[in-house]
């Protein structure tokens, strides 16, 4: 197989792009997508090391990460819909009060 640090490097680049997306973008939905990208980068490292050590634990963890991601997206998008109904905007600069 390829050296495992190729995969770690690629995953690090993808993770940094995701983190930049959270910091730069103002659209709440795009911020959620960036979070998904970061989770996916973590999954890539899990699977790469599962292959490297030839153990199934890494692949099992990817399943749990996927489940948490799915739950997070369901609740997060429901929150975004609720916020949009209240504020008519999903620009996070305008969502700056907790009073609603």
């Amino acid at each position, binding site marked *: 197989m*390829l050296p495992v640090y190729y995969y770690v490097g*690629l995953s690090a680049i993808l993770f940094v792009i995701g983190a930049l997306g959270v910091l730069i973008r103002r659209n709440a939905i795009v911020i959620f997508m960036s979070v998904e990208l970061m989770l996916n980068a973590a999954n890539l490292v899990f699977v790469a090391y599962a*292959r490297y050590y030839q153990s199934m634990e890494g*692949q099992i963890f990817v399943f749990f990460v996927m*489940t948490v991601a799915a739950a997070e997206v369901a609740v997060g998008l429901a929150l975004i819909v609720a916020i949009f109904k209240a504020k008519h905007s999903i620009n996070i600069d305008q969502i700056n009060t907790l009073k609603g």
Partner: protein
Amino acid sequence: MTTQYILFFSLALIAVVSALGMLFSRNAVYSALYLVLNFATTAVFFLLLHAPFIAIAQVSVYTGAIMVLFLFVIMLLGAERIGPQQAITWQRPVAAILGLVLLVEVGYILLTQFGFIPPGTDEIAGSFGSPETVGFSLFTSYLLPFEITSVLLLVAIIGAIVLTKVERNADQERK
């Protein structure tokens, strides 16, 4: 071995370019489609790493379910574009610098530490990563986390329903 390198670097290029496309698209629908491309390339990486079941789960769960949900919400809200109103001006350069710092840190660690790790073996058991192996692991040693996962999903379903339902009741009472 050379084909592996060519495959890896072309796929890595597609993955990084699609991630950057997601980051810099003005339109949120384009961002979502770039992210679908990124997830599909990651699924091919999983195939390369002898994880066929994870790869299929990646395609069906991420690109299938999650991204469709994203696109559905984007189109439901009609929120594919938001204007550049009242952006904090110093935020972008600071974010770029912080991202660069993170990347340099990771690169430094990779260059100084990972050179000592020997490359993995090419031979591998034929059943590694197959649905049987994954299922056996999941239902024996990881049975309790698997069951707890169902509770997590149940909580997420209830949360999503409650979050959208309460708002609708409040609207009706106002009318």
